[in-house]
């Protein structure tokens, strides 16, 4: 920048002198920068520029890695919070639920500070008090499944909402299927989720 301004100044001065006409005194010789010092100067400028670029790239790289990590944590959190569903009037863990729960086990093993509240829910059929108990049995079945993989029982608390908090309103087969579920709420260690590699 400084270099360019220097040359611009010299050039402008030359034009000015040329425009005067008449019998001008011989122009003073333009100041000749010392070739060595100029090279040194340009070199240092280039090095500074490279350093700056390197730092910026590092920063971007770091940011990309952090973003990837945050995405992985968000994905791990989503995996932990993914609901599982049950068959009508049953508390047995279904095959699809088993897959979802195994994925949670991996994350929970890597993230020992994470604690979870398991919520059991039922569809509207059957009686209210029966559904409270059924929700408990579902939550407890999930907890026992997780504990079966060696996770500490104290990391999980369970609660049943019975039929009181449906995910989907309506008295249809599809609404009922959505409402017979286990939900997962991270109650501690939410900022200590280790998403792994």
């Amino acid at each position, binding site marked *: 920048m400084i270099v360019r301004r220097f040359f611009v100044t010299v050039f402008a001065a030359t034009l000015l002198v040329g425009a005067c006409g008449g019998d001008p005194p011989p122009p003073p010789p333009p100041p000749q920068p010392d070739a060595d010092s100029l090279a040194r100067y340009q070199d240092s400028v280039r090095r500074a520029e490279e350093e700056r670029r390197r730092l910026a790239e590092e920063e971007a790289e770091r940011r990309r890695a952090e973003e990837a990590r945050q995405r992985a944590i968000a994905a791990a959190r989503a995996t932990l919070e993914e609901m599982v569903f049950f068959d009508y009037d049953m508390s047995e863990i279904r095959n699809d639920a088993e897959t979802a729960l195994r994925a949670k086990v991996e994350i929970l093993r890597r993230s020992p500070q994470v604690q979870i509240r398991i919520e059991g829910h039922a569809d509207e059929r059957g*009686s*209210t*008090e029966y559904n409270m*108990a059924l929700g408990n049995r579902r939550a407890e079945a999930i907890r026992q499944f997780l504990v079966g993989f060696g996770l500490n029982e104290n990391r999980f608390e369970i609660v049943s909402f019975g039929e*009181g908090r449906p995910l989907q309103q309506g008295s249809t087969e599809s609404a009922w299927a959505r409402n017979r579920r286990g939900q997962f709420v991270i109650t501690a260690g939410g900022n200590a989720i280790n998403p792994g590699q």
Partner: protein
Amino acid sequence: MSRVVNVVRVMSRAVALAWVVGAVSASAAEAQDELPGVELGLFYSNTYVPALAIQPFRGSFGGDAIAAQVEAIVGRDLRNSDRFEVLDSIPDAFIGSEVDYALWDRLGAVWLVTGEVEGAGDGYVVNLELHDVVYGEVREQGRFQLPGDTDEDFRMSVHRGSDEVVRWATGDPGMAASRIAFTMYDNDGNKDIYVIDSDGENLQRVTYYNDLTESPTWSPDGDRIAFSSFKELGVPRIYEVDRFGRNERMLPEVRGKGDYITPTYHPDGRTLAFTVNGSSTQSGIFTYNLEEDCCLSFLSGGPWYDVGPTYSADGRWMAFMTMRFGDHVPQVMMMPSEGGSAETLSPYEYGGGGFYAGPDWSPHGDLVAFHGRIDRAGRYHILVANLADGGRVLRQLTSEGNNEAPSWAPDGRHIVFAGERSWGFGLMIADVTTGRIRSLIGGRRVDLPDWSPSLPAR
């Protein structure tokens, strides 16, 4: 007392026997609800229902202003008692101011009720008389204090008079002077507790928690209501309030973490029985002495999920729902109220799909009501198990819609339950003797009714 013991002894012997069920031909629509070995049917004894007439009530000293109102309340109570055929549309021209037994006899009345309301201070006194038309004489009479007609105890005071008339005529208690507590959904999906008088009047909201609040139950003196609620803690705990929702207190976490649900009072009013659903090793039915704030006792449970205890009137037995036979086949069992071995009350069949829940023990005698479904495709109906008739007689009270959560009236004869019909939800009242069903409150999403004891004057 000894009768109950005998019944249980009989039942123990009868476990292998087929269920004795009074069955009338089931309609085609109910044919799917038949379980091999158990026949359910609507079965009502052909009881004699005497005709009762009400002569227009008279008033004096200011009582004339409310005489017709008192008469209307008494008339409806006597209809609701299902013990009389109350004669309607008697031409006024036939009715003089004096009692004319010959006239009432010709109109077919067996009983006649007359009433006279007098102003007395801030309130009134109503003098009720029950006449035996056949013998042409006054059978009983009584004077009942009424507060002013804007007083909140006014209608209940009239109901107490009606219940006395029932007692005079039948020797059995009435149930008009009582209330029913229940839960009702609001538009946000929350449930709060409400109470309503037994005749469907005077709906009042008790709690304003705007959360999930369930399973209200009356104390034996009718002063308090216990229930479970998610309010504050986000997990269900058991609370107790007076019937205005005031003077709240929480049952302490006597059994650690878990859901504290389905409370019921021991008939002595001091002990509360309830369910804690925590881990499978900590769950079960417990009792706790509210009065002395001590003495947690474990009755039954473990991994079985025993829920919703209910005491026999003498406090010696307890019925409850259990899931020990499997998730989808809850059954009703009974056991000594101090804990002990339990017997199945519902018609459990190994491998069957029978679903029975929500038991409530009658305040008079050896009857337990619950709801059930014979197979997985069936609908839920109100059933009554009679433990006294040499075995287990199971009767079905309802025949349409879905019907859940029965609760006995203090007369041991009526049952309130939550019904679902094509038009919506409502609370309904069935008379066990005649099978008559009336609607208490309809068109709202209501649930888990609990009928109070007879409410004394205060």
